[in-house]
Structures are given as structure tokens and as C-alpha cells.
């Protein structure tokens, strides 16, 4: 894959979903015979046209039948295929959940679930098309790894990694078209290893995932201007949890803030806190995310603002929590 600044900008325009299916998948299929891409009537929306015309024999559209899609994916995987199966995150992670539990989690079929439009990308479509519980469902299933890339370059890296392993996994794609760029140039992606995105300074560690990484980059900048120094981490792999880096964070900071476009119950913040709870002493944690609620539909910024997930809101929340601590 040619990682140039031009491509990084082009991929950003396509968004994480367009990059995954319009860029990464054709590349993967060009190198692998035994790959399949399955969709539930979302080929056009997902930018698969190029893939479908190049690799019609490595593609299957099962129609609007998500459960059947996961079962078919499992059957293909049992016979040696590396299967990528995708639809909206809410449908793949919730409607198909029992098929996922049976076939990916229990029987370990080599299927990569790709949930697109995770979080509230489809903000105006309303709650039916949002996914703010998908991490919780997937994280609770044994044998399934959970990835949540921060931008389009990271999406490419996660997809390439997915194709290279025989493990079932869930890849959560967030953000829409014109997805903010976190990585302006190539970087080292190590599955299961958090990335520190800033100079290590201050007493507050901000851990973000998915679209919230770019939002947190801006929040951290804003806080710096206000005299609150923070260090920002990108948790692109939610499961398995990067315990090594978390140990360092627990030792080095006085406040931990987790930021996710997801319910605060069961998500990335919960994963961090479950590990933190077993430590003899560790810093306090603030959960920034959907506060166990659904919200009214509207523009993406409107919904994120209601949820407290715009960079301004994230910054003011961290500032207030830090003030409280002092």
C-alpha cells in the first residue's frame, strides 16, 4: 500500500468505510485467492463498486439478511476462506449477535466483522442506525478481538492486519466522509498496542478511540492553552487490552480520562476500568461517552454536542474534573 501524504488526504475524503472497501479490500484481494467480501445490500453505500468489478468471484451480496450473512460467512471460513462481512455496526453487532457468538466466538470461524457508521455517523437517521453499544457486545465475546481505528490510514493498517491473521475480529469504523486525519504520515501500527500521540507531559492521561481520537487531539490542544497539560493515547485495539501501557499510565498520571463515541457502560472506558479495579492503587477515572442514554436525532455535531463529545465539551469536562481534583 502506497502511504503518501496525497493518499492520506484522498483516503480521508473517502472516510473509514470508503477506505476499507474502496482501497484496502481491492489491495487485499489482489494478493489473496481465498478472500471473500460479504455485504447485506450496502455495496454501493460502502464504496465497493471498484472491488466488485475487479473481483466479482470474491464478493457476495446476501441481501438485507444480516443473520444469514454471518452464517454463510462462517461456512465459507470453515472451508478455508478469509471472510470480511460488513454492514452498519448496529446491525452486524446487534441483530446478528447470536450468529456471531456461535460461529465467530465459540467456533472461532475466521470472519472479520466490519461495522460501519459506528457511533452516531448516521446522526439524522436516528437511534436505529446508531451504534453506541457495539463495543460492549463484541468485547464480551471470547476469542473476538476488537479494533477501532482513529482515522483512514489506521483503517488501512487494521484491514491489512485482519487479512494476515486467522482470528475472528470486530472492526469498528467510525466517522463519515471527510474523516479527520490523525496520522499525517506513516507510523508504526502494532496490534494490541496503544499509540501515544503527544509528548508525555502533565498529570492527565486522555485515552480515546475511533473518531474521538481526532476530537481529543483538539481538546488536548485547547486544554494546553488553558494551562492543563494532558497526554493523549489512541487505543485502536480495545481487545486484547494493552495492559503494559495501561500500567505505565496508572503509574505516571493523576487522572485518567477515557473518551469514546459509545455508551459508558461496557465500552472502552469500562475495559480500562475493569483492569484498573484490580490494581492496589490507581488514579481516578472519568468516563466521557454516552451517559447510558439515547439522544434526539440531528446533525452529527448536534448529537455529539448533546452527548458531550465535541472537543470543546470534552475539554471543559476534563478541565472541570481536574479542577475538582485540585
Amino acid at each position, binding site marked *: 500500500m502506497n502511504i503518501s501524504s496525497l493518499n492520506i488526504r484522498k483516503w480521508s475524503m473517502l472516510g473509514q468505510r470508503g477506505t476499507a472497501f474502496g482501497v484496502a479490500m481491492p489491495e487485499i484481494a489482489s494478493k489473496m485467492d481465498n478472500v471473500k467480501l460479504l455485504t447485506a445490500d450496502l455495496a454501493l453505500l460502502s464504496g465497493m463498486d471498484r472491488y466488485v468489478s475487479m473481483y466479482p*468471484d470474491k464478493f*457476495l451480496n*446476501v*441481501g438485507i*439478511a444480516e*443473520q*444469514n*450473512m*454471518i*452464517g*454463510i*460467512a*462462517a*461456512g*465459507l*471460513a*470453515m*472451508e*478455508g*476462506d478469509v471472510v470480511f462481512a460488513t454492514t452498519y455496526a448496529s446491525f452486524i453487532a446487534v441483530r446478528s449477535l*447470536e*450468529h456471531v457468538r*456461535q*460461529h465467530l466466538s*465459540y*467456533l472461532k470461524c475466521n470472519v472479520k466483522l466490519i461495522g460501519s457508521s459506528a457511533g452516531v455517523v448516521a446522526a439524522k437517521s436516528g437511534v436505529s442506525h446508531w451504534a453506541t453499544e457495539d463495543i460492549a457486545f463484541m468485547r464480551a465475546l471470547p476469542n473476538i478481538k476488537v479494533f477501532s481505528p482513529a482515522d483512514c490510514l489506521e483503517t488501512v493498517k487494521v484491514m491489512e492486519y485482519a487479512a494476515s491473521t486467522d482470528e475472528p475480529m470486530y472492526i469498528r469504523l467510525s466517522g463519515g466522509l471527510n474523516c479527520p486525519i490523525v496520522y499525517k504520515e506513516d507510523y508504526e501500527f502494532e496490534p494490541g498496542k496503544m499509540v501515544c500521540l503527544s509528548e508525555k507531559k502533565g498529570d492527565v492521561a486522555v485515552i480515546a478511540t475511533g473518531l474521538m481520537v481526532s476530537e481529543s487531539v483538539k481538546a488536548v490542544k485547547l486544554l494546553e492553552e488553558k494551562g492543563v497539560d494532558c497526554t493523549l493515547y489512541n487505543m485502536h485495539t480495545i481487545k486484547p487490552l494493552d495492559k503494559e501501557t495501561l500500567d505505565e499510565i496508572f503509574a505516571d498520571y493523576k487522572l485518567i480520562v477515557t473518551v469514546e463515541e459509545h455508551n459508558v457502560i461496557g465500552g472502552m472506558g469500562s475495559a480500562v476500568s475493569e483492569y484498573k479495579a484490580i490494581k492496589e492503587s490507581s488514579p481516578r477515572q472519568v468516563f466521557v461517552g454516552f451517559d447510558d442514554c439515547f439522544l434526539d436525532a440531528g446533525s452529527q455535531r448536534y448529537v455529539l454536542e448533546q452527548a458531550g463529545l465535541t472537543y470543546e465539551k470534552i475539554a471543559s469536562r476534563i478541565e472541570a474534573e481536574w479542577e475538582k481534583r485540585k
Partner: protein
Amino acid sequence: MSFTRNTDDVNNIKAMAKRMRLNALDMALESGNNGSHLGGGLSCIEILAVLYGKVMDYDVANPEKFERDRFIPSKNHCVLAHLPALCEAGYIEKNELLEFQKDGGRLTGYPMRKEIGLEYSGGSLGMAISVGIGIALKFKEKKVDNKVYILLGDGELNEGSIWEAFMSAAHYHLDNLVAIIDRNHLSYDGDTEEVMGIEPLSTKLESFNWHVTECDGHDVESLFEAFDDVLEGKPHVIVAETVKGKGVSFIENRREWHHHRLSKDEYEQAIEEITKA
């Protein structure tokens, strides 16, 4: 494809079915107070006997060879017929059969263990046919002429995703996929037509573009003919008319025997009835 057969074949399968029923009863007795799925096991004995005794192409010595037919149990309540069939095929020994519910055993919980012929671990109904479609698609791609056989329960047809699967198998013209419906007319709570009706079943399946064959699911010759009745370009479904608990008078057509404990006295009576039949 046609299955060449003679009178000996029919008699051999009948004898095999009888041994399988006796083994099923031994297994039921061994499960003690846990009870077991006798009703739905006894209803599909002949179906499994015909599959493993004649129809299917498999190699016990080479259980993961790609070019083999697959049997995917969708109604996992067929365990008391399936494991005795695997014993007849030579995948497992009789003594292991009796340990099918023992802690630490290879058969407990009906796992997927391809090395002993267990191709799939189901249990939750309605999911396996989709997996079978995936396998059948791979067979087509690899241009092997093996088949996927899926055993479905009739009560199981209440599950919605099964109909997603029926729709797609016909859409992909999977004439290497054979679904057998064990039409014993009883789900756990009673007559399927009282709990949640599925009739007119054959008409429904035909309207989903499947090739439908009806047969007597306890008559070996009728089953042979049904498996022979194939049509190019369409998935094949056999609606096998059966009796839940077939072969044991006090179990036949009794909903409480869906899952039940078998006492020593009942066991002895059942063995006598089957031996004399």
C-alpha cells in the same frame, strides 16, 4: 446422481437403524436423571441411517479431506440418532457413545470435532442452514461435486433466519445442498400446527424455489427414492414424514418425551419393543 441399491442395501440399513435405536436407548439410560432428547432422536434414525449407511461420501480414516460430503445437524436434538450413526460409520466406539454426557468427554455438549465426524456444533435453532450455504458455495467455487446435507426440525422452521437462508440457497442455485426436514409434527410444547403452524409446508418451500420431495421418513426405500429425486439448478428439500419417539409405544407422539428421563423399567420395555419389531 443415483444411489445404486439392492434388497441387501435396504435390509442392511434397516438392521443398522435397529442397532442405532438400541444404542440411543442405552445412551438415554446412561444419561440418568439428566434426561435426553429421545423423541426427536428416534424420529430421525432412518434418515441418519440412510445418510451414513448409503448416501454420504466420507472417509473415516481421512475425516478432514476436502472432497467429502458434510452432514450439518441443524436440529441438534438429533444427537441420539447422530452419535449412533457416527458409531456405525466407525468414527466412535460404543463405549464412548455411552459417555456422551459425561464431564470431560469428547461428545459432551455436541461440540464441533471434525476428527470424529462432528462437522458442526449447533444447539440454538435455525442457524446451521446458513453455514451449509457457505460450504455449498465453496464446493461450487472449487468445482467439487460433494454435497451438504442439513437436518432440520419442523418446529425449528418457526425461526426467521431459516427463511433468509431458504431464499438465498435458491438464489445461488445450490443444487449441492440437501435439507431434510424431520416432520414429526411436535415441538416442545405440542403439535406444530397448534403452537405455530408451518403448513402448507411443501407449497411454501416450492414458492421459495426449492425442489421439494415428500417421503416416509421411517421407510428406507422411500428415503432412498427421495434422495435420488434431484433437480439440477435447485436446492433440494426432503420433507420426511416421521413420528416423534418412533419405535417405542409410550414415547411416540408424546410431547413430554421431547426431553425426558428414561427409567430402568421403561428402558427394558423399550428395548423389548424395538428388538421384537
